[in-house]
């Protein structure tokens, strides 16, 4: 009996049956089909507990949402104290919390002038695209093949067909895609003269974190400048110190016109997102400040939490911890990779953003399963299933990192067996 006082379930089977009936049959079937029998219940730090009590170490962290782990006590206390004074707030009026958060946020992003708030990543991408269109008075948006920027009307059109065509939401006339790391293809699109923005995740997450070079990103930015196209950096997974810098674009020495932050800025406890932009891109707010209205966007509670997230991330000891974690996994996974190079092909890494390549077209799906059986939860990349997203949080401590590595190492023979009997594609 799982009793939550407001609701209860007799057992996991009842929960599955009702989830299938009332919520999402596809998702329920998919994970059970993969052998990932997980209903997340209690959570604490970087641990997740299945409703039946099994503990998992979370390396999925929902793309950085749980950068500080789950229910980080300082963030929870911040939110609880904020609730004594604030609520979502009224989006029409100037607000102390929103103003303070915008000011602090901008201090982390030299070159930017305004914060426009949303409630989630997709909304921030909408805001970015709309702002770029306003600034340039052009309509077309260019993104990369296998890019990913969310699921709302404009954002989904920038991404993979898988997510747009099903809803008849693809808009080929307004949205073009070019291959990643192909500056010529990008220039061919931009030179048409009708492009408002180029949007790119600084390290494409859903594509499995293929690492850009600084030259490529700088090349993109200078092409944008050349054709008066707004460069939108999607920093949802690369921001917030995960590259070892506050924002990924800073790690690569580029200056976007707009960048987007979500997930981790919420501390995993109160949704908020930010489209941070130059004066030029934010100029619509001077013409009509209410041109974009969002009741839950920039909620005051989210602002107070976001402020705390930024303050914590800038503490020297947290920055040092990010470097320690990054170096630990660079060394440790490097060793494991050398010993298991038959199945574990390579490591992509920037800071605590890692993509691990496995030697099978769906190698990461099997790796995810093998790790799951060894008490670690890490998810494959939806758009490149060879690559496992391996995303340690920024306050992981040394003993837990060692435990992760030991569990990872122990999972390698299991993975080898799974791959040996996997259908060859």
């Amino acid at each position, binding site marked *: 009996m799982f009793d939550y006082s407001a609701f209860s379930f007799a057992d996991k089977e009842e929960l599955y049956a009702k989830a299938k009936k009332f919520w999402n049959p596809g998702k329920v079937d998919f994970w059970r089909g993969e052998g990932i029998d997980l209903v997340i219940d209690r959570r604490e730090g970087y641990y997740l507990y299945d409703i039946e009590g099994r503990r998992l170490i979370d390396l999925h962290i929902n793309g950085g949402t749980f950068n500080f782990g789950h229910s980080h006590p*300082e963030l929870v206390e911040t939110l609880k104290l904020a609730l004594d004074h604030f609520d979502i707030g009224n989006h029409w009026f100037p607000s102390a919390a929103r103003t303070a958060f915008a000011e602090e946020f901008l201090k982390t992003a030299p070159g930017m002038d305004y914060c426009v708030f949303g409630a989630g990543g997709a909304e921030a991408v909408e805001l970015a695209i709309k702002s770029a269109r306003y600034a340039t008075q052009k309509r077309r948006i260019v993104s990369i093949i296998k890019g990913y920027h969310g699921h709302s009307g404009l954002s989904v059109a920038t991404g993979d067909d898988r997510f747009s065509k099903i809803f008849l939401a693809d808009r080929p006339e307004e949205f073009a895609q070019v291959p990643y790391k192909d500056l010529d293809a990008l220039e061919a699109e931009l030179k048409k003269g009708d492009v408002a923005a180029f949007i790119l995740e600084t390290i494409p997450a859903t594509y499995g974190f293929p690492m850009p070079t600084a030259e490529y990103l700088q090349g993109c930015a200078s092409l944008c400048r050349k054709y008066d196209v707004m460069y939108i950096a999607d920093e949802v997974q690369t921001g917030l110190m995960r590259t070892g810098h506050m924002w990924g674009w800073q790690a690569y020495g580029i200056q976007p016109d707009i960048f987007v932050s979500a997930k981790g800025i919420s501390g995993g406890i109160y949704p908020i997102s930010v489209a941070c932009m130059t004066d030029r891109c934010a100029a619509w707010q001077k013409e009509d400040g209410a041109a974009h209205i969002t009741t839950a966007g920039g909620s005051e509670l989210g602002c107070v939490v976001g402020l705390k997230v930024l303050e914590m991330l800038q503490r020297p*000891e947290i920055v040092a911890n990010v470097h320690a974690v990054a170096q630990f996994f660079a060394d440790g996974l490097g060793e494991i990779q050398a*010993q298991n190079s038959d*199945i574990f092909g390579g490591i992509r890494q920037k800071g605590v953003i890692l993509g691990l390549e496995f*030697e099978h077209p769906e190698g990461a799906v099997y790796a995810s399963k093998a790790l799951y059986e060894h008490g670690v939860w890490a998810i494959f990349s939806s758009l490149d299933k060879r690559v496992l997203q391996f995303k340690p949080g920024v306050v992981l*401590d040394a003993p837990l990192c060692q435990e992760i590595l030991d569990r990872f190492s122990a999972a390698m023979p299991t993975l080898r067996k799974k791959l040996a009997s996997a259908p060859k594609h």
Partner: protein
Amino acid sequence: MSGSDTTPRMLTPDVAAARAGQMLNTARWAADSFAKMDNETVRMVVKAMSEAGFAKAKDYAEWAVRETGYGRVAHKIMKNEGCSRGIFEKYGDLDFVAPRISHEAKTVELARPAGVVFALTPVTNPVATVYFKALLAVMTRNAIVISPHPGAKEVCADAVRTLAVAAQSAGAPAGLIQVVEEPTIPLIDHFMTSDDVDLIVATGGPAVVKAAYRSGNPAIGVGSGNAPVLVDDTCDLRKAAKYIVDSKGFDNSILCTNESTILAFESVADQLLQQLKNARAHVCKPQEVEALRKLLFTDSGFNVDMIGKDASLIAEAAGFRAPGAEILVAPVELIQPEETLVREKLCPVLAFGRVDDINQGIAAARSVMRKSGKGHSAVIHSTDERRILSYANAVPALRIVVNVGCSLGASGFETHLGPSMTIGTGFAGGSSVGANLKPENFINMARIAYNKSDAEPFGVFEGLARDTVAAPLPAIHTFPSTAPSAPQAGGEMRAELRQLIQEELKAILTA
């Protein structure tokens, strides 16, 4: 803010406690990485720390006196030097890395560092204790977080930074030596009770020591001193007087090993008083003794304003003059704890009592130590081994120093007890250790032990390092190394990735 209400409209969590937790994480990373280093690196790190500390011995001595108002610069320089280069000279050649092989016992011992040490340092010997604990912790491959007494926090924080920079430049990981810049009771409590602390080393008042033991973490705390000095009729009185005055005057009695009360054989008492005068002691008249008693002991205990002050200043504060005196000698009639002047006095005031013989001397020494000082130090000036042995056997001290000043004798600088700023007071003194703190206190030993039967021969471990098992060879490829679904992920990309990782690592190392 409008109106006169200054209460914040919204509250935020206490940042200090949260940061404390992260300091311990940092320390753990450093400890883990430092524990893997070889003996030569460890030795170079300790040497660099000791040299950096030595170089700043004078600056910090002046700074400490300025900040705390306690002690004497010249003597603090000596302590700072003794606890930096002196400690390295004493222990620097010890190897806590190599396996220790015993063929007789058929064992191999591997030193295992505690891990993360949390150290409290006192206001009285601020920098010397910082040096001492940091060097001992690091030479045994531990990380250390030092929480200085708030009264000496600035000089200690600077001293810790000096050691940390030196250690890092000699190859130690960042974060191996850290300081709590703003120590507060709740913050110290947070550290002491944290599961991420492996060992607490507490020097300070009894409250601090008891708190350390109550914390639930392994702890080494040490109690306070109150050393009696027995002077019999077989010693050289001139030398004894000189030792006593120099020791009692050393840093104005701020070491916990300083002499508390002379117990002079009646037959030599007057001669001893004369010798003390010759050695620049001021022997107080009865009304001066009374004034001192009032000045030094208030209803709430020892007058902390007098800690480590010059003898002449104390005399002035008590209303008499003792210009140029190294110490003040206060003759007392009663040698019992109710005579406050026989208690611990961290200032150059020495009680002086008379005893008829060794038996009475022993009884008097026990009386002196009844209220405080158990497990700590006692002194005897004598050449009669039987008396020395009976005295040592009967007084509740764990170090009984002979024909030497107690300040530097019991603390191991002028004896072979091992130089120490932390004096174990044993079970009697509420401590888990009874000797002067040594590097061995910061490690455990893992022991490989063979079957003692001759049927099972002992292994040959000579020439092997701790971690000698070679990394396994890469497995044989059984799957295609590139997959069709990722056209870009060829060898070139991998090389590029490898380079990026290298660059990232380089950035980390130089950060």
